[in-house]
C-alpha cells in the first residue's frame, strides 16, 4: 500500500512539474475506475491527462445519477461542481486532500448534493 502511495505521489509530483499551464478539465467518468488520476475520466485529453496543477481548473458536470470521484492529494486552481457528486479516496490513497483556490457548487435546476466521504477533504486556502 505504501509503495503504491509513494508511486502515486511521485506521479503527482511529476505531473505537476510538467506545468502544462492553465487548462480546463471536465470529468467524464469514462475511465476504468473512478480515480482522479485516471486519464480516461477527463476530457480533453491533455498532457498531463488530469488536473493536478495550481493553474488548472476542474469541472464535474451534471449527470443523471451523479458521479463518483476518487480524490488524490493535490492542488488545482478552481473546482466547479455542477451536479451530484460523491468525492471519496482514490484507490491506494489515504485521507487525500484536494485543494483549490475556489470551490463552486451550483444548484442547477434540481439542486446539487455533494458528498465527501472515505476520509477525503475538499479544501480552499482562502485569502
Amino acid at each position, binding site marked *: 500500500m505504501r509503495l503504491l502511495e509513494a508511486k502515486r505521489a511521485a506521479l503527482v509530483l511529476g505531473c505537476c512539474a510538467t506545468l502544462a499551464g492553465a487548462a480546463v478539465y471536465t470529468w467524464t467518468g469514462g475511465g476504468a475506475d473512478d480515480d482522479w488520476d485516471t486519464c480516461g475520466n477527463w476530457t480533453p485529453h491533455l498532457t498531463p491527462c488530469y488536473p493536478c496543477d495550481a493553474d488548472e481548473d476542474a469541472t464535474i458536470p451534471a449527470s443523471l445519477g451523479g458521479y463518483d470521484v476518487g480524490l488524490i492529494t493535490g492542488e488545482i486552481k478552481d473546482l466547479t461542481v455542477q451536479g451530484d457528486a460523491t468525492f471519496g479516496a482514490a484507490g491506494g490513497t489515504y485521507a487525500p486532500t484536494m485543494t483549490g483556490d*475556489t*470551490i463552486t457548487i451550483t444548484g442547477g*435546476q434540481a439542486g446539487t448534493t455533494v458528498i465527501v466521504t472515505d476520509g*477525503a477533504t475538499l479544501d480552499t*486556502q482562502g485569502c
Partner: protein
Amino acid sequence: MDTSLLSGAEEDSDVRIHWTLLLSVAAMLLSAVPAGAYYFEWIGPYVTGDWTTATNWWNCETQQYGVPGANDTAAIGHGMVQIGIADVDVGSLIIGPQAHVYLIDGYTLTIHGPDPSTLDGWLEFRGVGVGGSAGHQGCRRVSYLHLAQDVTIHGSGGIVGHDCAGTYYARGVITSATLQGGPAELTLSRDDPWDERPSILGYVRIAAPLNNGGIVGVEGNQRDVLTLTTNAKTSTSDGTWRAAGNGTLSVGVAVSGGAEWIAAEDGALEINAACTSLSGGVLLDGASMEVNQNFSTLGEFEADSTNGDVTIEVAPGRTLHCGAG
C-alpha cells in the same frame, strides 16, 4: 432565707434549660432538613445589592435569611442584584418585571437544574427593557454566562451584558437560549485566547432579530470558532439565525463584521441568505451544510470527512462559492 426566691430562681433556671433543650432539638431538626431545593426571594435594596449578602435573601420555606445555593430557586421580583464578590451557582433563577442581575467582569453565574428538558432551572428575564430598566447603570458585558439550562427571555427582552442596543454578549458556553420579544441579537465573544471557546451546545433561537436578522456572531481578539458539538437540526425563517432541536446552526443573514469562522464539527450548517463576510471561512468536519441562497466566502472552506461524511446540498438555482477568486 427566702426559699420562695430560691425556688423562683430554680424555676427560671428550669425554664432556661427547657428553652435550651427546645432550641437544641429545633436546631437538630433544622439541620436534619436536606440542604437545597428552597425558594428564596430577593429582599435586598432596589439599588445595587450583592448576591452574596445573606440579609438580601429570604428563604420562604425556612423563614430565614440566607443565600440560595446550587439546588435552590432564587426569585428576584425587583431590584438590582450584582454578582461581583464571588461566583454564583444556583438551581433556578427567576427575574421579575423590575429586576436586573448583572455580573462584574471575572465572575461566573452558573445555573444548574436536574433536566434541561423540563422547566426546572430556567432562567427567565421578564419585562426588562433592552435599553435598561429604571435604575439601570450603564451597559455591562457578561463576564461568564454558563447556562446549563434553557434560557428564555420574555417580553421586551433583556439580559445582563447587553450593549443598550439589543445585543446580548456572552463568553463561555450557552447550552440553549431563546431570545424573544424585543429586537435582539446575540454575540459570543472571547477576549483572551485562554478563555473557553464560545460555543453553543444546544440551540439559539432569536424570535425578533435586529436589523432584519438575528445575528449569532463571534467577536474577540482571537480567531474564534463558533462550534456546534451536538447532533443538530435547525430550522430557519424570517431571516433569523435559528437553531432548533439538536444543535444545527442556521445562517439567515449576512454575518456582521468580526465573525470569522463558522464551524460545524457535528450536526449541520444551514445557509439561508447570502453570507459573504466570513473572513475566516467555513469548516465542515463530519457535518452537513445546506445552502438555500447564494453563499460565498473569501475565507477558507474545508469539507473534511475524516471524522464522518460531509454532505453539502445546494438548492436549485443557488450557488456555493468559497475561496479566493
